[in-house]
């Protein structure tokens, strides 16, 4: 396949440079807060972050931090330390990285990025919405630090959550509020919470528009850059920061789309990426761009972080948002429907499924998705075997060869 002149390494969007500043400021703030004795919660992904901010509790994300460690090539020594403590190599590598960190013994500990997770946590908050693993992982953290833990449960949904399902989660959210009052010894400030929800909804709306703007032909920004732009949505929903950042990003994208400026010089194939990216090898996402292909949509970016909240019924609206718009919490049937819809909507030519041995909840059902794509739309897909954070056993060259072959296949199909 012919290579197109590689683009310069600079980012497609100026605003993307601000993501790094936001990240640094977040870490600096959380360490200062810890020093000042403010409560820090170690939070799972997709917990009710907005509630934490309403109570002035700063969330730290071991999962996100695992991705950071992986991107800095620190995963292996940390995973190995966890395994030496009896944790199975088959556990989620995010968890293993965290266990390696919190149970590290002896010399040789890598220098942890951003000064490390603020430890010990004052509070733990977790949920089954992404997976049961979160609960099990947090139980281990609790054993380590012996601090209070809040758990939010939710059933998986078939797209729209039912009334009973929403009630179930909304009832728990009210209980979480009581638990947070007890923990902080302060009264719940509903106005502050509703403000946080409004900000979260604004950020979520903006994120959806950004996703749609990326649906333009040519696509104004690829996956690799967008993976670096998701952090405010992961950690800061309920604050002004993601609203401002994503509004600016949206405005820039609007200009790019109006001017039909693509992220790559010639866009020949539009790809979708399913599952969590390979944090130690994000370059894989931009690797395809030299061949005129670009990842324009990712299930991980669109259906894990952010979402709309029905503010006319905020508690139930919040419950619905938490459990409904999350790929990991969708039934297989719903995943198939959503995939088919989005492949059409974003004009996708091919899908790359990352079969991620660290995330069963994301990965199970991918074979069915692949088949449905082929049968219902005639869209080809590729399954690559890897792990989101642990590079052990991953072969970059083999994976690239398979991607090359997949792009050849797309080329051939276009010729036919």
């Amino acid at each position: 396949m012919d290579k197109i002149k590689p683009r310069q390494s600079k980012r497609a969007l100026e605003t993307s440079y601000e993501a790094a500043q936001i990240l640094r400021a977040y870490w600096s703030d959380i360490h200062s807060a810890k020093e000042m004795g403010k409560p820090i919660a170690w939070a799972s992904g997709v917990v009710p972050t907005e509630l934490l901010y309403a109570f002035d509790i700063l969330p730290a994300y071991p999962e996100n931090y695992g991705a950071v460690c992986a991107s800095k090539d620190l995963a292996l020594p940390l995973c190995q330390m966890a395994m030496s403590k009896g944790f199975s190599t088959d556990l989620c590598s995010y968890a293993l990285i965290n266990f390696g960190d919190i149970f590290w013994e002896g010399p040789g500990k890598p220098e942890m990025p951003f000064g490390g997770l603020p430890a010990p946590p004052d509070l733990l908050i977790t949920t089954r919405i992404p997976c049961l693993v979160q609960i099990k992982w947090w139980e281990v953290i609790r054993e380590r630090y012996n601090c209070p833990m809040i758990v939010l449960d939710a059933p998986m949904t078939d797209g729209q959550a039912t009334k009973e399902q929403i009630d179930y989660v909304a009832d728990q959210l009210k209980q979480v509020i009581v638990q947070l009052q007890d923990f902080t010894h302060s009264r719940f400030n509903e106005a502050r919470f509703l403000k946080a929800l409004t900000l979260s909804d604004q950020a979520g709306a903006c994120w959806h528009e950004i996703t749609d703007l990326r649906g333009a032909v040519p696509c104004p920004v690829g996956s690799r850059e967008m993976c670096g732009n998701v952090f405010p949505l992961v950690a800061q929903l309920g604050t002004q920061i993601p609203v401002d950042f994503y509004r600016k990003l949206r405005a820039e994208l609007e200009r790019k789309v109006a001017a039909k400026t693509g992220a790559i010089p010639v866009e020949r194939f539009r790809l979708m990426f399913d599952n969590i990216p390979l944090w130690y090898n994000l370059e894989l996402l931009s690797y395809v761009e030299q061949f005129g292909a670009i990842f324009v949509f990712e299930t991980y970016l669109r259906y894990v972080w952010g979402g709309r909240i029905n503010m006319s019924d905020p508690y139930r609206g919040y419950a619905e948002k938490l459990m409904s718009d999350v790929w990991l919490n969708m039934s297989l049937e719903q995943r198939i429907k959503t995939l088919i819809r989005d492949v059409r909507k974003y004009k996708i030519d091919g899908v790359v499924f990352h079969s991620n041995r660290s995330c069963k909840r994301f990965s199970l059902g991918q074979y069915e998705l692949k088949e449905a794509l082929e049968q219902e739309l005639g869209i080809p897909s590729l399954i690559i075997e890897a792990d989101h954070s642990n590079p052990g056993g991953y072969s970059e060259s083999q994976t690239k060869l398979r991607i090359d072959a997949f792009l050849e296949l797309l080329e051939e199909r276009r010729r036919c």
Partner: protein
Amino acid sequence: MESEEDIKMEGQFRELIVRQREMADEWKSAGGKVVGHFCNYVPEEILHAGGVLSIRILGSHGHIARADAHVQTYVCKLIRSSLDMGLVGELDYLDGVIIPYTCDGMRLLFDLWTKNVKQGFVHLLDLPLIVKGDIGRNRFEGAVIQLKKSLEDYLGKSISEEALSISIRVYNENRALLRELYNLRRNVGGMISNIESLEAVLSSLTSPKELHSDLLRRTILERSKSTAHDEAAPGAPMVRLHVSGSLVTDSRYYQIIEDCGGLVVSDDLCTGTRYYWDDVKEDTHPLKAITNRYLDKLPCPCKSPSEERYQFVLDSLRQDDVQGVIFVLERYCDPHLYDYPFLRKKVESMGIPVLQIDAELGLSGVEQLRTRIQAFIEIVRGG
């Protein structure tokens, strides 16, 4: 010395396991329905009250023929092999399957099953994670009521409170007998072999309960009589062991332990105490009592909080004068694998040695395992 009668008795639980399919066919010939289920959170009493024979699906030890086209290999063998059994038609005799939301794999198995294994009554028992507090309890109760309703719709008849009360008694009796057998094996070493005690539970999971209870009763009676006459077996005393894990379905594990001089006196297994430890209260509204039993039962690591499970394991070790613990850890079984390091540490802090065995349902590498267990038992003896 075992008498001929003992040997005959000993084989009877195994015979029930072997005859499982035949018994299911007989049940169906008599006009009944047969429904499979997973895990020990499905309230079988409701099925029984509806005249349904409930069969616990325990996967298989064989190789996977078709499931690998539907599910990745980094999923536990119970899920992979059970799906495979469904796909190749080995479970065609079932009129349906109930899958509870216990772990993530089970929840997604429901979706894969619905899509790929066409079968009459396929039901998701959508259970909450948290079993303490009113919100979790109400959700759990709702799931149990929903199961009863769906089953009634499928069967085309209602399940009366009276029928439920009878089924509760039948199940309680079976559980009481299993506990009696458990206590006997703890208290009267050698009265019942490792394998037989395992097979007694495994056969209970797939047999008509009345039949199974009858056999349990006779076994307990016979063994109590013969043990009273027996002299202590010659040679070194057996080492008393606890087995911890999820499923043990291959009796060769227990055979090897016994061959090496180990006696399994207690366990916390899905195919053990977690199945039969708790009864349904008989003096309250039956459906409520059933709900409460499954909520309050000895929890599986899929449920939160988990302290009660830890406590049960540690209490078992204290009560039974256990000398060693063998963890049989199913590969890719996240809930157990996350708990393991801490549980192990707690056990070791009691001065009890631990052996970890990685398993995938069926045993592979018999001789290697024998060597490890032999070495472990020697360590325990020496300690």
